[in-house]
C-alpha cells in the first residue's frame, strides 16, 4: 500500500534532475568532442598552410585520393619557368597522394600482421584456459603475466624495443640472434638503418610483434569471459556424445562466441587504425631518418597538423581524418551486417508473411481490416 508521502512523491516530477545530472557530460562533450569533430570536417574543406582560411571545396580529398601525373623532365632546370613551376606544383600534390596511400597501406599491413597472430594466440589460450578437462596449474598467474604488457606505457615500450632491436653489436636482438645461430658474426639485427629499400620488413615485424605482445592478453581475457558465458551443459552434452575438442571448437565455441569475436575484431580494427605511439616514436627515432614503411595514418594526420616549424596543413589533416572516419564507420557496419542474427531475420520474415496471410484471409471474409 502506498502511503500518503509515497503518493505525493510520485506526483512530483523529477525530470529536471535528470537533465541536471547529465548536463556536465554533454556540455564537455559538445565543447571538447563534438565541435572538434565538426570543425575537423570544416577544416577538410579549407586550404593548407598560408591558404588556411579559404574554402577550397573537395581539393584536399582530390589531392589525397587521386594521383596527379606530371612529367619529371619538366621539373629540371633549363625548362621554361612557367612549365617548371606547374610541374613542381603537380609533383608536390602527387607526393601528398603517394604519402597518404603509403600510410594507409602501412596501417592495413601492420594491423593484419598483428591481428592474425593475436587472435590465433588469444583464442587458443582462451579455449585451453576455460577447458575444465585440462589440468593446467597456475592459470591465474599466467593470466596476470600475459595481461601485463598491456598496462605498460606504449611510449616506454617503443623506446625499450628500439634499444633492444637496434642495429648495433650490443643490442639484445643481435645478441639473441647470434647465439641462436640466426645471425652470423658481423651481422646485426637491422631495423633502423636509413636505407628505405632495404628495411621494409624488419621494422614492420618489430611493430607487429610489439602490438601482438601488448594486446594478446587483453583479447584473451575478453574471449575467456565470452566462452565462460556459454552454457556449460552444451560442452557437457558434446563430450558425452564423444565430440573431439576440434569439433567442440568448430561447432559450439565459434558459433556461440561469434558476437564477442565480432566485437573484438571491430574494436581491434578501430584500435589498429589509431595506431600511433609505436610508429611515431620509431619514425622520429634518429635525426633525419624516417622509416617510411611503418608510418601509419594516425602519424600522417598528426604530422600534418603538428609539423613543427613549418606552417601546419590543417586541410590535408582534416581530409585524412574524414576519410578515416568513414573507413571506421564502413568497417563497423560491414561486420555488423555480416554477423546479424540470421535466425531472427528469418523469424521476422515469417511473421510478416503470416501477418499478410492473415490480412488476406480477413479480406476474403469481408473483414474490416485494411
Amino acid at each position, binding site marked *: 500500500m502506498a502511503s500518503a508521502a*509515497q503518493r505525493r512523491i510520485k506526483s512530483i516530477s*523529477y*525530470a*529536471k*534532475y*535528470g*537533465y*541536471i*545530472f*547529465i548536463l556536465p*557530460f554533454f556540455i*564537455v*562533450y559538445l565543447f*571538447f*568532442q563534438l*565541435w*572538434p569533430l*565538426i*570543425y*575537423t*570536417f570544416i577544416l577538410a574543406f579549407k586550404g593548407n598552410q598560408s591558404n588556411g582560411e579559404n574554402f577550397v571545396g573537395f581539393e584536399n580529398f582530390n589531392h589525397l585520393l587521386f594521383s596527379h601525373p606530371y612529367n619529371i623532365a619538366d621539373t629540371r632546370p633549363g625548362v621554361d619557368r612557367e612549365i617548371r613551376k606547374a610541374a613542381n606544383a603537380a609533383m608536390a600534390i602527387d607526393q601528398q597522394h603517394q604519402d597518404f596511400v603509403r600510410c594507409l597501406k602501412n596501417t592495413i599491413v601492420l594491423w593484419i600482421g598483428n591481428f592474425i597472430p593475436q587472435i590465433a594466440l588469444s583464442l587458443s*589460450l582462451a579455449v585451453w584456459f576455460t577447458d575444465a*578437462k*585440462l*589440468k*593446467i596449474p597456475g592459470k591465474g598467474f599466467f593470466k596476470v*603475466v*600475459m*595481461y*601485463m604488457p598491456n*598496462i*605498460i*606505457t606504449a*611510449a*616506454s615500450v617503443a*623506446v*625499450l*624495443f628500439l*634499444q633492444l632491436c637496434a642495429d648495433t*653489436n*650490443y643490442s639484445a636482438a643481435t*645478441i*639473441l640472434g647470434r*647465439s641462436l645461430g640466426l645471425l652470423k658474426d658481423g651481422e646485426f639485427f637491422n631495423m633502423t638503418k636509413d636505407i628505405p629499400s632495404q628495411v621494409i620488413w624488419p621494422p614492420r615485424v618489430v611493430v607487429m610483434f610489439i602490438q601482438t*605482445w601488448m594486446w594478446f*592478453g587483453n583479447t584473451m581475457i*575478453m574471449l575467456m*569471459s565470452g566462452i565462460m558465458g556459454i552454457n556449460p551443459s552444451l560442452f557437457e552434452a558434446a563430450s558425452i556424445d564423444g565430440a573431439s575438442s576440434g569439433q567442440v571448437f568448430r561447432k559450439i565455441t565459434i558459433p556461440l562466441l561469434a558476437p564477442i569475436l565480432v566485437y573484438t575484431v571491430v574494436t581491434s580494427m578501430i*584500435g589498429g587504425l*589509431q595506431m*600511433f*605511439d609505436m610508429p611515431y616514436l620509431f619514425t622520429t627515432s634518429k635525426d633525419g631518418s624516417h622509416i617510411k614503411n611503418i608510418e601509419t*595514418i594516425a602519424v600522417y594526420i*598528426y604530422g600534418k*597538423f603538428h609539423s613543427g616549424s613549418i606552417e601546419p596543413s*590543417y586541410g590535408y589533416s*582534416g581530409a585524412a581524418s574524414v576519410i*578515416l*572516419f568513414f573507413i*571506421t564507420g564502413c568497417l563497423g557496419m560491414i561486420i555488423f551486417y555480416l554477423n546479424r542474427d540470421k535466425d531472427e531475420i528469418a523469424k521476422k520474415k515469417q511473421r510478416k508473411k503470416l501477418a499478410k496471410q492473415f490480412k488476406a484471409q480477413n479480406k476474403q471474409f469481408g473483414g474490416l481490416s485494411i
Partner: protein
Amino acid sequence: MSSMKSVYGDTAKDNYSFKIKLKSGILLAWMIILTIICLLPIYILILNATRTHGEIISMTGLGKLLVPSGHLGENIKNLSTKTSEDFSLLIGYKNSLIITVFATFLTVFFSAMTAYGIQVYEFKLKEVSYTAILLVMMVPVQVTSAGFVKFMINLKLTNSFVPLIIPAVAAPAVVYFMRSYMKSSFPLDIVEAARIDGSSELRTFLTIAIPMMKPAIAVQAIFAFIANWNNFYTPNMILIDPNKGGTTNLRTLPMMLSILQASQKTADYGMIYTCIALGIIPIIIAYIALSRFIIAGVALGGVKE
C-alpha cells in the same frame, strides 16, 4: 564378470587420463614459453638499468646479457642530477601525476553522475541521450584531433593542462559501463526511500549511490589512471611549446622518455634504460597489487581500444 568390467574400465580410464595429462603437459610448456616471451623484455630492461653505458656497448654474449650488474644507484643519481631545460625526471613525474589524478577523478565522478541521471530519472530525452553516448563511443580520437588542436589554438589553451584534464568529464565508455553496473545492482527503491526521509537529490547521489557503486568506480578508476598515465598522444599534441618560452617544463613522463629517445646518439644507454624502468615500475607494482580487479574488469568489457 565384475573383475572384467573393472579391468576394462581401468584401461580406458588410464588411457583417457594419460591423454589429458599429456595435453596438459604440452600446454603448460607452451604457456611457460609465452610467459618467458612476455617477461623477457622487461627482465632485460631491468638488468640493463643496472649497467653503465660502457658495459652495455661492450656486451657480446648471451651469458652477459642475462646477468645483472651493480650500477643502478649510479644511473639513478646521474638521471636525477641531469636536469636540462627539456629533461627532468622529477618534473615529468609531477606533471604526469597532476594530469592523471585530476583526469581520473573527473572521469569516474562525472561518469557515475551521468549514468545515475540516466538510470534513475524519467525524462523525455533519456533514451535519446543514452543512444548519443553509445554512438560517440566508436569515434576514434585521431579523427577529432585536427579540429581539437586548431580549436585549442584559437582559444589559446595549448601549453596548458586544461585541455588534458577537462575533456575527461565526458567518457562515453565509462558511462556505458557504469550504467550496465547500475542496471544490475542498484535498486531504484533506495532513491525513493531516501526521498521519503527528506534527502535532497544531490545528497542521495553523493552519500547513497556513490558508496553503492564503489566496485564499478574502483575498476574504472584503475583503468582511467593507467590510460592517462600512459597517454602520449594528447599531451604531445596539446603541449606544442612545453617550455613556454623557457619559464617552465610541462612535459609528461612519456614525453620525457621520447626526448631521451630522440637524443640517443649522445645519450647514456644505462640512463635510458633506468629512465624507462623508473617510468614503468610504479605501474607494474600497482598492477600486481590490483591485478585481480583489473583482470575482472577486462573480463567485464571495461576497457576498449
